[in-house]
């Protein structure tokens, strides 16, 4: 895949190595970028089973994910977080990986529910034992399915993780 690097940000990154005392600038930009990211995490929904229903419920009036600036995007290109909610079968795994590959950096993965985390009770021939076999999972949310509150708690955990990140603001891939 062809990725362009014409954004001014990468110039700063390269140039900044020679400018002394730029650490503060980087840290500042880091803070701003991370703030933007945690404040508008747009998930790519990958609802496969029961947990998807609870994820939808979390977006509904009673829980309202929009409060956190979260809008569900159907296209993985415009999404930041991939929420895997539900059982991952082996037949599904290639599709899931492809969707993940379509996402733009920085991207995060939340495994929601026991099925996505480990495969749950379905230790069977057709089920992948957890999506972390082929995806870098950032946050695990246990539960079968987790309550919407637990799901939001997982999102807040992810926000904490993003807050402490450094130098993830370029198109370096």
């Amino acid at each position, binding site marked *: 895949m062809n990725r362009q690097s014409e954004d001014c940000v990468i110039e700063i990154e390269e140039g900044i190595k020679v400018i002394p005392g730029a650490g503060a600038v980087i840290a500042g930009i880091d803070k701003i970028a991370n703030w933007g990211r945690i404040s*508008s995490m747009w998930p790519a929904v990958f609802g496969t089973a029961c947990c998807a229903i609870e994820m939808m419920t979390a977006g509904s009036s009673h829980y309202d994910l929009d409060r956190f*600036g979260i809008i569900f995007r159907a296209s993985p290109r415009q999404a930041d977080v991939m929420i895997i909610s539900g059982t991952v079968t082996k037949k599904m795994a290639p599709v899931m990986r492809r969707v993940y590959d379509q996402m*733009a950096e920085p991207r995060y993965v939340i495994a929601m529910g026991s099925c996505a985390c480990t495969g749950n009770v379905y230790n069977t021939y057709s089920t992948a034992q957890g999506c972390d076999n082929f995806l870098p999972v950032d946050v695990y949310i246990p539960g079968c399915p987790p309550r919407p509150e637990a799901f939001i708690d997982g999102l807040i955990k992810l926000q904490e993780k993003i807050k402490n990140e450094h130098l993830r603001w370029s198109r370096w891939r």
Partner: protein
Amino acid sequence: MIESVISSVGINGFAGSMIALLVKIAIVFGVVMLHVAYATYFERKVIGHIQLRLGPMTVGPHGILQPIADGIKSFFKEDIIPAGADKTVFKIAPVIPVFSALGCLAVVPFFDGFVLANINIGLLYIFAMSSLSAYGIVMAGWSSNSKYSFLGGLRSTAQVISYEVALGLSLVGVMIMSESLNLTQIVEAQQKYWHGMFIIPQFLGAFVFMIAAFAETNRAPFDLPEAESELVAGFFVEYSGMRFALFYMAEYIGMLVMSAISVLCFVGGWTLPPFVLEAFPSLAAVPGIVWFMLKIYFHVFVYYWIRSTLPRFRYDHLMCLGWKVLIPLALLNIVITALVKYFC
């Protein structure tokens, strides 16, 4: 106002007028960008409350910083050009709708005397510009090398071509009544009537215009090109990061422009109806821009209101509505207006 300030500093002639123009452009651009940012916020809040939720709450007090966070995130997001895409076209595409929407603003008078270019063919110019935004959509849909965006582009093209006609015809009545294509003169012409707004004699035209404007800006219930449940995200399905944000921006500027035209042509722009002014003379002290903004925001609110209420049209019903209902209605409106004008 701005001119006098500049001439008082000592810059006169061509340079002075150029600087004044630049300052005006900067003001309009800034205000519009702010509007775009907060239109998204406003939309989320309005739709949220209609759906008995709250909308953005956590980013800043009552989520007031939400649009800024969205912008920053998009800015720092990786920009993907899909393999197999037509790179140049793919890159140019998002710029065109923004360009065309901003271009429209050049002739929009915000209040008496504040207009970037007071040209005689203002309305025609706006048609010309707004018809261009279709290219961005077509190019995006075509160059992304994705079937969903391709379908979205195709739908959008057909939709824009058909509704352009209705949009143009619906305003002909206004042109006949005001005998001008200049937007400032159209506003002034409305002041000659007791009602002070053309929406009353031109209710048919206004109705057709509203519907055509919804279709022209691809807003619900005519959001077929980006119908989420059918085409995932329509023509910009492959766009990410800043380029995607540009499409978003263009949509909201487009809404602003359409509301502005509607306000100018049908609701009397920055003026108040004479009978209202007679009843409350003190209202004349309020600057016109306030009324203009209030009217525009009411229109924008209607956009959101309708979006949250109505289901989506189907492609062929949309075409039927455009060709079989709106265009005949607009033509009827023209005939009636012309007859009334001729005989009265």
